[in-house]
C-alpha cells in the first residue's frame, strides 16, 4: 500500500483536469463533468418533450414516445455509445469521442426522464387542468404554465437520481479512448503497476463526493420554501 506514490501533486492534477496545463488536452474530472452536465441538460430537455408526448392522448404522439422510451431503456448504454462513435463514420460523419458519449448518454437519460415527467404530470390534480382549460388556455399553454411548474417539485428527487446515474455513466467514455476521470486513473494505475487498490479507491472517492454533492444540491431545491428563498427573494 503506497498512498504517497498515488497522491502526488502531478497525479492529482491529472485526475482533476487531465493534461490541461501540460499539453492543453483537458481530461479527468473536468471532462467527466463537462460530459455529465451537457448530457444532463440535453437529457432533461429530451425527457421533458418525450414525457409530454407520452402523456398525450393523441396516438401520433404517444406511440413514437413509447417506442423511443422502450428502445433506449432496454439497450445497454455502451452499445449506444458504440452506435454514436463507430457508425456515423461509415456515412461520412465523424463525431468526436466527447460528442458521441454526450449524445449517447443524453438519449439514454432522456428515456428515463420521460417516464419521470410522465409520472409528474399524472400527479397533478385534474381539477387544475380543467380549471385552466375552462379559463380558455390552450393545451400547450396549460402544460407549460400549470403542469410543469407544479410537477417540477415532485419530480426533483427522481430527477436527482437520474442525474447521479448520468455522471456515473460518463465513465464509459474511457472505452472509446476519451481521457475522462476513469481513463486517467487507469493510466496512472498502469504506470505505477503495484498500487491498483489506492488508485481505484481514489477514483471511488472522487465519484462519491461529486455525486453526493449533486444529491445534496437537489435536496436544497426540494423544499419549496428554500427554493423560493434562494431564487425568488420572497
Amino acid at each position, binding site marked *: 500500500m503506497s498512498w504517497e506514490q498515488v497522491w502526488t501533486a502531478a*497525479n492529482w492534477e491529472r485526475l482533476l483536469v487531465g493534461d490541461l496545463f501540460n499539453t492543453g488536452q483537458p481530461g479527468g474530472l473536468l471532462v467527466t463533468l463537462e460530459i455529465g452536465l451537457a448530457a444532463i441538460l440535453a437529457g432533461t430537455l429530451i425527457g421533458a418533450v418525450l414525457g409530454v408526448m407520452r402523456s398525450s392522448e393523441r396516438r401520433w404522439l404517444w406511440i413514437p414516445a413509447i417506442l423511443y422510451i422502450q428502445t433506449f431503456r432496454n439497450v445497454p448504454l455502451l452499445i449506444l455509445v458504440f452506435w454514436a462513435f463507430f457508425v456515423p*463514420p461509415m456515412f461520412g460523419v465523424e463525431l468526436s469521442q466527447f460528442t458521441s458519449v454526450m449524445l449517447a448518454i443524453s438519449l439514454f437519460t432522456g428515456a428515463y426522464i420521460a417516464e419521470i415527467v410522465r409520472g409528474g404530470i399524472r400527479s397533478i390534480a385534474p381539477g387544475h387542468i380543467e380549471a385552466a382549460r375552462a379559463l380558455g388556455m390552450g393545451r400547450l399553454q396549460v402544460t407549460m404554465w400549470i403542469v410543469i411548474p407544479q410537477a417540477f417539485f415532485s419530480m426533483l428527487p427522481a430527477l436527482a437520481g437520474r442525474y447521479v446515474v448520468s455522471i456515473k455513466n460518463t465513465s464509459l467514455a474511457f472505452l472509446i*479512448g476519451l481521457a475522462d476521470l476513469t481513463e486517467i486513473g487507469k*493510466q496512472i494505475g498502469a504506470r505505477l503497476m503495484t498500487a491498483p487498490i489506492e488508485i481505484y479507491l481514489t477514483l471511488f472517492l472522487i465519484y462519491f463526493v461529486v455525486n453526493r454533492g449533486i444529491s445534496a444540491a437537489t435536496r436544497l431545491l426540494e423544499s419549496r420554501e428554500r427554493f423560493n428563498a434562494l431564487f425568488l427573494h420572497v
Partner: protein
Amino acid sequence: MKLNMRSMLCGLLVATVSSIAVAQEKSMIDEVKERGVLRAGVKNDAPHLGFTDEKGQYAGFEIDLLNDLARRLGVKVEYTPVKASNRVQLLQQKRIDIIFATVSHYRSRDQVVDYTVAYLYTPQTLLVRKDSGIKSVADLANKRVGADAAAGSVKKIPKMQPKATIQTFQGWPEAFFALERGTVDAVATDNIILAGLRAASPDPSKYVLLGSQGIFSGGYYGVALRQNDSKSRDTLNFLLQDQWVDGTWQKAFDKWLGKDSELKMTLEDFDNFKMEIWDN
C-alpha cells in the same frame, strides 16, 4: 408535394454518398499535408517505445521517430492512444492516418492494412518470474501464458507447446500485472516490449527475460496505413530510410533502447537488424 420532398432527399443522399466515394481517392499524405496535422495511432503503455510520462506527454522510441517524420513532412502530430483491439477500426474510419504502435507485420494483417518497410526486427521470447524455473517454451507445459488478445503469440505458442494454456488480456501492462500476481506464469511477446515492462516495474530483478533458448519467433515492426495508397506508402518509406541513413534512427535507438537508456540493448539483441535502404 410529398413526392418532391422525397426525391429531393434521395438526391441529397446520393450526392453525399458519391461525394464521399470521390473524396476517398485522394492520397492520405496529401490530405495530411493540406490539413497540417498527422493523426497517428500510438501506444501509451509500452515503456521506452510509446508511453505517457507523469505529465501526460508522449515519449519513447517510436514517438521520437514519429515526431521526426512529421517534422520532415512539415506537419504537427495528433496522438491517439490505440490498442490492438481498436487500432484497425480507427484506421479504417479515418480517425487516424497511420498506426505507429509496435505493429508486427503478419500476412493476415497485411490483408487489411498496408505496411511500410520495417523499422525494427524483434525476436519474440518469454518473460518469467525468477523462481519459476522456466527456461524455454518447452517448459511451458501445464503453465499459463499471458498475451494481448490480438497478439501473434496467441497462435504461435500453442503450436510450439500444445500443453500450455493461453490467457488473453486487454493490453501488455495487464498481462504483466497478471505475471506479477501469479495469474499467469509467463508473458510471450516481442523482447523489446517485455524489456520495457520489466524495466518500468518496481522490482525488475524479480523477472527474467529469456535469451536465445526462450526465443520462439520474431516479427518486423512497420508503420501501418490504409490499403491501396502507393503515394503515401512511398513517402513514408523514403522518410523512414532517410532517418536510418542520416543517423536519426540510431539516435532514437540509443536514447531509448541502447547505450544511453537503462535497457542497454544492442543491435545484436535485435538480430543485427538493418533497415532495407534503396538508392535513388
